[in-house]
């Protein structure tokens, strides 16, 4: 159990994966098309959240190269975090 908790993949597949899925969901509220009803940017990310999480989780769990996982995480995480930050600070 101790070795599991010390493993980087445990943290990447666990809390970091969940946080990343939340960040992407929130970021989508700002870049996803609103649609004719003005609600798609809110509703679609909420509906897709379980799929987002599952996609990220299985990729992180099955990809043997951890660096590649970190790269994809950064690719998804940074733009969405920047968008959310810009919404509040600018």
């Amino acid at each position, binding site marked *: 159990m101790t070795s599991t908790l010390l493993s980087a993949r445990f943290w990447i597949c666990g809390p970091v994966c969940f946080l990343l899925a939340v960040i992407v*969901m929130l970021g989508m509220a700002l870049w996803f098309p609103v649609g004719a009803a003005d609600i798609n940017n809110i*509703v679609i990310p909420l509906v897709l959240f379980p*799929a987002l999480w599952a996609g990220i989780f299985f990729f992180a769990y099955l990809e043997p190269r951890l660096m590649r996982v970190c790269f994809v995480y950064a690719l998804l995480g940074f733009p969405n975090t920047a968008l959310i930050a810009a919404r509040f600070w600018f």
Partner: protein
Amino acid sequence: MALDQRKTKALVALHGWSAVFLGLLLYAVVITGAAAVFEEEIRHWSIGTVANQSPFSLPIDKMLRAEAAGVNPEHLEEVTLSTSASGYLGAFFHTHVKAADGQIEEYGERVVLDPATAQVVERRTGTVTELFQQDNPGALAQFIVSIHTELHLPRPWGLMLTGILGLVLLVSAISGFLIHGHLFKEAFTLRRGQNTLVNKRDLHSLAGSWGLPFAFVLAFTGSFFSFAGAFGIPAMAIVAFGGDQEAMIRTLIDQPAVESATPGPAANLDTVIADATRRSGAAPVFASISAWGEQGSRITVFTPASGHRLTGQQFEYSGNTGTFQREKPALGKAPSAGATAVSLMGPLHFGNFAGLLSKLVWGALAFALCYVVITGFNLWLQRRAGEAGWDWLHRSLLGVGYGIPIAMLASSLAYFTAPVLGLQSHVAVPWSFVIVGIAVLAWSFTSPELVRLNQQLFYLCALFCLLSPAARLATGGIGWLGAIQQGNLAVPMLDTSLLMMATFLVFRAARQSRHADRSGGQDGQELVMAAARAGQQR
């Protein structure tokens, strides 16, 4: 789908360990969900005397006008009208206030009216939580739903936990799909005459293969409901609406706030409801009036799914003249992919899109999913039969596996006996669940002999199955003939199901007992008992 050996091994480990850590909680959510599918039937069974006529099909306008004249004018900001199984109309005259935790909550006066006699049945003031959590007649059905959706834990923690369990189910379903490469073949494979482990693996794979699409749908829709309620909607409101949750809700339901404080005429509600009934073909189940008696007032009438429709409809009327404005989409100001996706989530999760038939299918599939969870545990335990340190899991499996159904039955027993004992049903029902659940779990951990415990729990479950309908009848519940005459088929249906279940459990326990005597405990067909024996062997 072909996976390399490393990935297959990793997925098998994930499939097993995710279930070992959270499988019992997942079982709790799924088995309570199997019961929650029949919420309406449980409500009708527990209340007994139900109206076969919707209160919306009777004149209500005059009564509501009289009530509206007497309430605090601030509470006319919004009025919601709902129905009850007893045929009463609940009118909640309310405004919106900020609760201690910063959340916006409805506060006002709730009046329960009997349109048949034009009498006021009940009148209370409070927040929506205070008013609706103390629903004594509906306490049993409400509790079963609450234990499924939030494990009866405070918000948002209960929702967060069930959301995580939904994700665990999603992991199990996807990993199960990937590791069982010959899914179609496994859905039809049951090798009889093989050794018991192979046979049990076949049973697990067979039930799992058939239940896989259903498990995926349940997991996806369930985690959506939990996470959206727990943090999704508030978090989206922060990002997209600067934290104004009310503004986001108004955008989603397309109901801009009515700012006018100019008095205006109030439309005749009977005319509006008759028009909505004609348009949808079914009596409404809910209606909402914003800014009653003011210029710009609106009435929205909600009708249930009927005919070929999977979802209900919403009709909007002028609250001043009663003229029809439009059929509203489920969300937003115009039809959209988002609104369609959200409106499909409910029917897919609750299985209520084709009446009792679809509910029976959903309930059966949920029971099959419980079977997959339990057999998965047994396979895991049997493979580790020689290893030390798994006794706690055997005992937990017995305690939770039997404890939750027994506790649910105990809560129904408490519901019927509470009024006789002078207790409030909404208090007695959850407490009886907790006390009986803990007692069964404690018994599982202290019983010296697991094989005998397994049989005793079977008999206890059967006893509670018999006691529930008996208590219902003994405390003045309606008889079968009277219920059928009223059109309340839930009473004979649930009573019969419980009696059949009790008979099945008694026969099953007796068969186990004969098997154990004959084979010395090595060849039992019962999976839970086999796991228990594996623990005994050490």
